[in-house]
């Protein structure tokens, strides 16, 4: 069987499986639902998907479902998008960030301790961002002090997705202030039930509380739960961040394409199906969505071929964020006054729920988080187009503007 045939066979297999397994009516069921029900639904879907081997295609050979090539992983993501399956957002950090970090940088002992748990449904969260650190990881201040065989942690993390449900946390802390700022970071694995950890969900402008703050008050972590050497946290964090390798944006751009008919449905509901002005706007959007899909696809192909260039990922993310905003904005326009009436929110859905004002608000997650549009523009202009960076020596004394 040629590679192409194998891939096509996998596609048919996954498609058939999804057809009989995606929970029907999950969108309705997840609209205006309490968090607990949402967590239960995510768990059910996780168990189904992982049992079938489709949750862990990126894990090494030998693990359930593992050993798939990037091209095969892409097929699974594409089919999940096509089938409009729920997004596994509660398990994403565990399946990708935690697992890949452990495979790449963990000890055998750590892998043994944590990976089975992930397959059994343990939830992980990420503890990287801090208030006022924005996109500037080097400025992290949450502190870990070494005392004997333990680290003692004090400080605060923010924008941690679903931390209120997490069993474990990937934690980036400062162990040294003396050298260059990146060199003083250390990477730890934290049990969220440890004494001194408290979590406060952040109520979002959408009404959801997808993110949380985590506070650390003399929290102790054993040295054996450190990933990499002390001071090597920056490099380990890069491995974490690279773990999804462009697959998320393949999935999300495909989902955006499959969501286009939602706009048509809104047009019908609002009686503007035949409005030429809406047609023009929709036509432009269709082309932009198509371009976003092609970009995400091309990016993954480049990764598969080992051709990735610096800045490529920034272009995909920037373009997706802009297109997603346009998508939601058109929905808002089509919806007219109707779209301004509060319609609640849908949990664990894609970015396109048809609750257009909600979607509009949600679209900021992509233009702000994970490196804002502004940061991506810096990367593109400086590292791809070769335009000069402003010299680092150009600084103001802190607080002086």
């Amino acid at each position, binding site marked *: 069987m040629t590679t192409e045939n194998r891939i096509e066979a996998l596609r048919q297999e996954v498609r058939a499986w999804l057809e009989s397994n995606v929970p029907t009516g999950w969108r309705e069921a997840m609209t205006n639902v309490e968090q607990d029900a949402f967590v239960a639904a995510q768990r059910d879907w996780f168990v189904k998907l992982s049992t079938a081997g489709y949750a862990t295609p990126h894990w090494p050979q030998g693990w359930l479902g593992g050993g798939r090539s990037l091209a095969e992983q892409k097929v699974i993501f594409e089919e999940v998008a096509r089938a409009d399956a729920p997004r596994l957002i509660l398990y994403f950090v565990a399946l990708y960030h935690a697992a890949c970090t452990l495979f790449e940088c963990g000890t055998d002992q750590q892998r043994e301790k944590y990976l089975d748990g992930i397959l059994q449904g343990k939830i992980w969260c990420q503890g990287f961002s801090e208030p006022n650190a924005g996109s500037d990881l080097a400025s992290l201040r949450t502190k870990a002090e070494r005392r004997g065989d333990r680290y003692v942690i004090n400080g605060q993390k923010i924008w941690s997705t679903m931390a209120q449900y997490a069993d474990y946390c990937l934690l980036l802390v400062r162990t040294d202030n003396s050298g260059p700022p990146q060199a003083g970071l250390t990477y730890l694995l934290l049990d969220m039930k440890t004494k001194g950890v408290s979590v406060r969900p952040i109520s*979002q*402008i959408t009404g959801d509380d997808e993110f949380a703050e985590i506070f650390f008050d003399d929290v102790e972590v054993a040295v054996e739960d450190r990933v990499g050497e002390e001071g090597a946290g920056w490099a380990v964090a890069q491995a974490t961040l690279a773990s999804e390798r462009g697959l998320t944006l393949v999935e999300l751009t495909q989902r955006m394409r499959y969501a286009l008919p939602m706009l048509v449905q809104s047009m019908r509901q609002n009686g503007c199906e035949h409005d030429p*002005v809406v047609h023009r706007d929709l036509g432009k959007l269709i082309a932009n969505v198509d371009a976003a899909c092609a970009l995400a696809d091309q990016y993954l192909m480049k990764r598969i071929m080992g051709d990735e260039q610096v800045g490529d990922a920034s272009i995909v993310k920037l373009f997706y964020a802009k297109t997603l905003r346009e998508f939601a904005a058109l929905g*808002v326009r089509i919806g007219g*006054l109707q779209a301004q009436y509060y319609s609640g929110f849908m949990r664990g859905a894609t970015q396109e729920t048809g609750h257009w004002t909600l979607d509009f608000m949600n679209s*900021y997650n992509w233009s*702000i988080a994970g490196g*804002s549009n502004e940061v991506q523009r810096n990367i593109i202009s400086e590292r791809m187009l070769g335009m000069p960076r402003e010299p680092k020596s150009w600084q103001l004394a802190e607080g002086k*503007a």
Partner: protein
Amino acid sequence: MSFELKELQDSTRRVIDAAGIAADESELWSQLTELGWLMVTVPESLGGLEAGVQGACTMHCELGRGLARAPYLPAMLALDAICGSEQSERDTWLEQVFAGGLITTCLAECSLHVSDSRLDGSATGVQSADSAQHVLLWTDSNDLVVLVDLRKPGVAITAKPTWDLTRRLFDVELDQVPLSEHHIVAEGESARVMIQRLAALRDFYLAADAIGGAQTMLEMTIEHLQTRVQFKRPLALFQALKHRCADMKASIVAAEAMLFDALRRLEGDLDNPQFGIKARGVKMFATTMFTQVAEDCLQLHGGIGMADEHPCHLFLKRALLSEQLSGSGAAYASNLALDLIENSGNLQSGKCA
């Protein structure tokens, strides 16, 4: 801006600033009725301030700056109608309003018809209807303006919560409401003129509100950029962000100039049909501008702007709703174009080579 308007602006701003962003609805309502703000457009002969539409817009701008929840805007529209009604009843109504009794009106669609002296139909976007005794409505055929008592049989109100958390809208349904039990403000030709004027005033007031909102949002954003330090520099030093702020400032000032220019030219001439078309242009420009400003300002706030406890989103949501109230941008743009096309028949036609 004249000295009188500046005075009005300053005193309003002091009150709104003290109340804070999106302050409690009923407290601000009590305060503003006590301060006599409802009298601003009322003629001196009726005990008002006679500060005209310019005065009213100056105040709406200030209320917009504070995202005021109080239903000042519909109340001002209702008052304008009352001032134009028959003298005998007028004074009773004014007394009631000045005492703090809210008369609200419809900020979106009003679709009513009369048959057998009974009213049927509905109105959407009626602000704070649950706090009002009466609502001012009008018929599709433009020949009747009526104050409907919301507590009488056949009248039903339904709350319609919006994403905008600073205004409370309701639908009002009328089912075989006997006209005789309600107060007719105007009929026939005078109703037609009044309805046109109300539509224009609604547009101007929504525009003023949007301009005020955009002003605060930009100020808040610049403050944030000045304060927030990244890579050891305040964000306000980054030229890309500065240029975006400059563009926003230019749009806000343009909207303001456009609004007050239109009012200066048309103030004495409220029944001029140009009043309506000008109002649409201003409303479309200002509310679109507000959305664009709010959209970009939220982005410039970064993650903190996404938190419910930060006021950023209140501005964006109010902007989005204002864009849809009274008439959508697309519809208004089309109106403006058709007006131009109609008036470009022979006018200037020799001009194009």
